[in-house]
C-alpha cells in the first residue's frame, strides 16, 4: 500500500519531463515559413531571403575574416535578394553540408540552395526539387606535377591517384579507368587538406577532383607552375541553384536572374555603367531588360527595374566570375559566353 503513491509520484515526474519536452518543441518552432502556396510571397512577407550555401568552399562560398559570406554562389543569393527587395543584404545564409542540403530545402528551412550542386536526373525528379539553370559548368579532371611530363590522362597507366572517398568523384574515376583500360592504384583520403598534402608530398602521381577544385588547389601551392591540370575532363558536373517544387514563379525568378547576369555581360552592361545604360541606351533589348518598357519584371512578380537593382549589387556574370573565381586560378573555359569559342553560357532572349 505504501508504495503506491511513490510509484504515482515517479510516473508523474517522468510524465512531466515528457510533457515539458513535447511542450518545448512546438514553442520553439519558428513562424511558418514558405508553405506550398507561394514561396515568393512568403519571402516578401518575411523580408529576407534564406539561402543555403556551402559550409566553406574557396571561391564559391566562404565567410571572410569578418564572418561575411563571400563567393560565386553567395553572389547569386545577393542577386535574388536585390531582385526582390532592391537590397542585396537582405539574405540569411544557412551553411549546409553535402548530406543536409536537400532536406534543408525540402523542409522549407531554406528558400533556395546555391551550393555547387550537380544537376542530375535523379535529383531533379525524385527529390521534389527543381534546378533553375547552370551557373557553372564543372567537370572532373586530373592534376599532375609538371615534372612528370604527363600530357593526357591516358598516360596515367599504373599511376597512384589521390581521391576523396564516398563521392561521385571516386565512382567517376573507376568508371573512366574501366572504359579506357587504365590501371591505377587509388590513394583514398577523407580530408581535403590531407589529400592535398599527400599529393604535394609525392605519395600519389595525380590528384583528381572537379576542375574548379583543382584550380583552387593549384593556386594555393607555393609554386603553381610546378603543377599541371590535364586537359581531359572525365565527367560532366553542371552546377546550379535549386528550389523545391511548388512555386514555379520563384523558380522562374531564379532562372531569369541568371539569364539577366549573362545577358548583361553579353550586352556590355556592368555594375559601373548600369545606371547610365538604363538612362541612355537605345537598344530595344537593353530597354526591355532594364525595365524601360515591356513590363518584364512584373511578369516575374518583382519591380520592373529588377535587373538594374541586381547589376548594381553584384555586377554581371563576367564580373562575378572575375571577382571570385579568377583570383583562385579558375579560367572561364566552358563558362565563357556562347559568343566565344568553347563558351556555353547562353541567355534566353528578354522579350
Amino acid at each position: 500500500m505504501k508504495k503506491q503513491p511513490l510509484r504515482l509520484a515517479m510516473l508523474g515526474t517522468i510524465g512531466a519531463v515528457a510533457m515539458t519536452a513535447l511542450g518545448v518543441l512546438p514553442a520553439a518552432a519558428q513562424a511558418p515559413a514558405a508553405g506550398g502556396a507561394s514561396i515568393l510571397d512568403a519571402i516578401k512577407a518575411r523580408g529576407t531571403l534564406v539561402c543555403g550555401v556551402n559550409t566553406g568552399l574557396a571561391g564559391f562560398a566562404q565567410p571572410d575574416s569578418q564572418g561575411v559570406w563571400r563567393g560565386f554562389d553567395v553572389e547569386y543569393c545577393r542577386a535574388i535578394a536585390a531582385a526582390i527587395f532592391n537590397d542585396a543584404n537582405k539574405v540569411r545564409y544557412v551553411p549546409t553540408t553535402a548530406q543536409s542540403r536537400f532536406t534543408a530545402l525540402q523542409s522549407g528551412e531554406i528558400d533556395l540552395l546555391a551550393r555547387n550542386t550537380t544537376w542530375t536526373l535523379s535529383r531533379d525528379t525524385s527529390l521534389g526539387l527543381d534546378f533553375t539553370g547552370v551557373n557553372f559548368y564543372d567537370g572532373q579532371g586530373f592534376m599532375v606535377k609538371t615534372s612528370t611530363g604527363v600530357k593526357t590522362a591516358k598516360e596515367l597507366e599504373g599511376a597512384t591517384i589521390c581521391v576523396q572517398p564516398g563521392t561521385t568523384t571516386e565512382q567517376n574515376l573507376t568508371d573512366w579507368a574501366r572504359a579506357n583500360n587504365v590501371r591505377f592504384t587509388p590513394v583514398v583520403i577523407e580530408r581535403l587538406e590531407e589529400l592535398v598534402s599527400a599529393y604535394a608530398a609525392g605519395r600519389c602521381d595525380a590528384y583528381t577532383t572537379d576542375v574548379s577544385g583543382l584550380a583552387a588547389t593549384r593556386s594555393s601551392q607555393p609554386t603553381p607552375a610546378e603543377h599541371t591540370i590535364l586537359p581531359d575532363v572525365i565527367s560532366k558536373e553542371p552546377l546550379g541553384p535549386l528550389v523545391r517544387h511548388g512555386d514555379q514563379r520563384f523558380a522562374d525568378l531564379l532562372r531569369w536572374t541568371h539569364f539577366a547576369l549573362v545577358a548583361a555581360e553579353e550586352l556590355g552592361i556592368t555594375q559601373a555603367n548600369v545606371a547610365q545604360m538604363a538612362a541612355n541606351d537605345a537598344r530595344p533589348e537593353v530597354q526591355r531588360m532594364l525595365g524601360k518598357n515591356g513590363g518584364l519584371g512584373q511578369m516575374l512578380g518583382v519591380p520592373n527595374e529588377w535587373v538594374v537593382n541586381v547589376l548594381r549589387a553584384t555586377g554581371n556574370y563576367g564580373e562575378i566570375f572575375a571577382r571570385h573565381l579568377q583570383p583562385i586560378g579558375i579560367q572561364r573555359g566552358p563558362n565563357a559566353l556562347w559568343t566565344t569559342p568553347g563558351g556555353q553560357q547562353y541567355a534566353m532572349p528578354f522579350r
Partner: protein
Amino acid sequence: MSDIPLNTSVAGVPEAAAPRQPPALTTGPAAWLRANLFSSWLNTAMTLVLAYFIVRYAISFVDWAFVNAIWSVPNNQTAACRALKTSPNPGACWAVITEKHRFILFGTYPYEEHWRPAVVCVLFTALYVVSAMRRFWRWELAVVWAVTLVAIGILMWGGVFGLSYVPQERWGGLPITLILATFGLAFAFPLAILVALGRRSSMPAIRVLCIAYVELIRGVPLISLLFMASVMFPLFLPEGINIDKLLRAQVAVILFAGAYLAEVVRGGLQALPKGQYEAAEALGLSYWQKTGFIILPQALRLVIPPLVNTFIGFFKDTSLVLIIGIFDLLTAGKTAVVEPAWQGFGVEVYIAISVIYFVYCFAMSRYSQNLEAELNRHRVR
C-alpha cells in the same frame, strides 16, 4: 679485573673509527635520477637515447613555434608564410591566428557585435567557476544559473534592450561549443538520474522504457543521431514548420549524453551496499527522501571519475555538429583556412583550437580530482 686505560687500544678494534662517507646518495634529486633513470646499463642507455630525441624535437619545436614564426602579415599577403614553410628553417605562421582569431572564436556572428559572444563566453566560464565552489552550493545557485542562461540568451539573440537581432545561423565558434556542452550536460544529468533510477525500478513499464531508451541510444553513434535530428526529423514535420537547427542538435546531444550518464549513475547505485537501502527504509523514509538523502549522495560520490570522464568526452563530442553545418569552434577553425590566401595553415589553427579545448578539459579533470579527494575524505585512513 684490570684497569683498562683509556688511551690504550684493544686488539682487533680499529684505532679510531675513520670518518665514513654517508651511504651513497639515498635522497635528493641525484638519488632519484639514479634510481629511476640510471639504475642499470639498459636504463641508462634508454634514458640517453630518449633525452637526445626529446631535446632535439623540443628545440626544433621551439624554433618552429617561436623563433622562426611569423606573427602577422599585412593585408592577407601570405607569400612570406609560404616561403617560410618550404625554407630549410621552417616556422609557424601564427599570422593566420592573428588574422582569423575572431572568426575562429565567434564564427559568422556580426563583426561589430563580437563583444556579445565574448561576454557570453566569460559568463559561461564564470558560471562554471561559481558552480565549482562548494561554498556556493545552495539553492540560490539554481537562480544564478537561470539568470545567467537568460542573460546569455538575450546577448546571443538580441532584439531587446537596443541589441540588434542576430538569427541563430549566424552564431558560431566557442559560444556554440559552450552552449551545446553546457545545456547538453545540464539537461542530460537530471535525465540520466531519472533513467538510472527507472532502470532499477520495480515497475515493469518504467523499467522496460528506461532500458529501451538506454540501449537504443547506446546502440547508435552520435553522428547518426545528429543526422536523424537534422536530416530526417524535419521531413516528419508538417511543411512550413521548422525547428531551429541548433535546438535539434541540442536535443540529440542531450538524449545521447543522457543514456551514457544514466549507465554511469546506475553503476554508482549498484555499488552501494544493500544495507543502505534497507536502513533508509527502516527509518521510514519515503522513496524520494531515501533517494535524495541517502542513496544519490553516496552513489554520485562514487562515480565522480567516470562522470567527469563522460563530461569531458561530451565537451569534445560537440564538435561532431560540423556534419550538420553548425559552426562550432572546430568547424569555424576549419572554415578559417578555406580562404585561398590562408589554405595550408591548418596546423597552426588546430594547435590554437586544441589549446582552447585543453584548457577547458584539463580544468574539468583537475577539478574532479579535488572534488573526489574532498568528498571521499572519510574513506581516507
